[in-house]
């Protein structure tokens, strides 16, 4: 070992280097172990969540997995693109390209929606000011 290597290892406590050298100290060896539940408390049987509107699953699955998220259901044009993407197998490049395109459309939809909301609020404000001005003038 060179001086540099020796120096590099100096600050480490002795028990650190090689503490997990024996294979039985390595939780991931072998990577695929004999079959048993992942944790002693893992549920043997579990209910499936109820299906909701606007969810997606890959083309190979007949239905949703037992557990899923309902955070951002499909909507608008981006939702349409995503629905088409999920009807295509994920081994096809088209699947991923459509999803990436839908992401950009989603951002655009969000920005346009925000703009419309701001414009509507501004118009409503302007109308309110006009009405108030006329009312007080009378």
């Amino acid at each position, binding site marked *: 070992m060179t001086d540099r290597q020796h120096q*590099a290892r100096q600050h480490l406590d002795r028990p650190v280097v090689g503490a997990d050298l024996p294979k039985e100290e390595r*939780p991931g060896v072998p990577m695929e172990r004999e079959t048993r539940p992942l944790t002693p408390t*893992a549920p*043997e049987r579990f209910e499936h969540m109820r299906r909701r509107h606007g969810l997606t699953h890959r083309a190979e699955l007949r239905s949703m997995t037992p557990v899923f998220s309902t955070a951002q259901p499909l909507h608008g044009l981006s939702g349409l693109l995503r629905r088409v993407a999920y009807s295509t197998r994920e081994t096809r490049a088209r699947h991923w*390209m459509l999803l990436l395109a839908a992401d950009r459309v989603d951002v655009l939809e969000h920005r346009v929606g925000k703009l419309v909301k701001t414009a509507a609020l501004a118009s409503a404000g302007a109308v309110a000011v006009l009405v108030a001005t006329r009312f007080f003038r009378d």
Partner: protein
Amino acid sequence: MRALSYLGPNKLKVVKKPDPCIEHENDAILKVTRAAICGSDLHLLHGLVPDTRVGCTFGHEFTGTVEGVGPSVKNLRRGDRVVVPFNISCGTCFYCSRGLSANCENTNPNSDLASGVYGYSHTTGGYEGGQAEYVRVPFADVGPMKIPDDMEEEEVLFLSDILPTGYQGAEMGEIKGGETVVVFGCGPVGLFAMKSAWLLGAGRVLAVDHVDYRLDFARRYAGVEAVNFKKVPDIVAWLKDQFEGRGPDVVIEAVGMEAEGSKFHRMLGLGFVQAGVPVAINWAIQTVRKGGNVSIIGVYGPPWNLVDIGTAMNKGLTLRMNQCNVRRYMTHLLKHIREGRIDAKGIITHRFPLESAPKAYRMFSDKKDGCVKCVLMPAA
């Protein structure tokens, strides 16, 4: 509740969202106490992960206090402090029962690539992440691990992802004692891979990056030699020279899809012609000695990359990779933290309240102010 919300590439905002609720009998709801920003969150932020929807909340490294549990949850009670693996796993399917919880087939309806993951796009199930005040935790009897009463959240926070990921990276390198190891990437995962390489008995560990402060941090924190690849003419040749002209026995790739080092690959990768920038994988394949092991823990997206597989085949390499099966490492690594072999908390350089999350992301992404790891404190 307040939660970080994605508004498009490089745009984040903390907004009000409805509180999560119990949607399945084995769910739990956590009040988040700490949530870290992971290097892989930056791929989401930069719009590189397919099906990242506007309004989603990131965050797959978090600790929390149990606020409520579903009727079938036996392992947790209200008030328990827990650390949660980033994989959402059922615990009993074909893969989980073989220890491969990262490949669980019951939690991700959208893709066969991986299990469900908190806050990591709809490609991994579309679950909301932990960079929020509250989070829903499915299969609460399987993933979460209680935090020992005498330990703080920050001491165990990284058991949720980066520490087990770094350890699994070193373990997949099949270090048997005395091997030479090169780690590409001095980010948090790379740092833990270096520490783990020593634990597994490496004889020499050398780190590669291009950010000087991170190289210095690696020298101090992990006791490794370190080289800036931008300061040597050809990093592959330089590394081979360091190991008797043959190259190291093991190379761990802890960089992922936004690697520096090749303008050509960056142009193709960031222009979506290939899924990310595979420079670090190619350097790993070219650097390692013939018959050596390459362990890949950097994140890449589907569907393809220009990877130098011909060189790997001709050199007789073993390539190993996976998302980390976090649950099976937690107890073992907790022991190392308790016994002082790993100072996991020692990599935290910045702490922010949840409101400052966009600022934290900017700092972490731009590698400013010596930033190695940012932690958010939603309750602050």
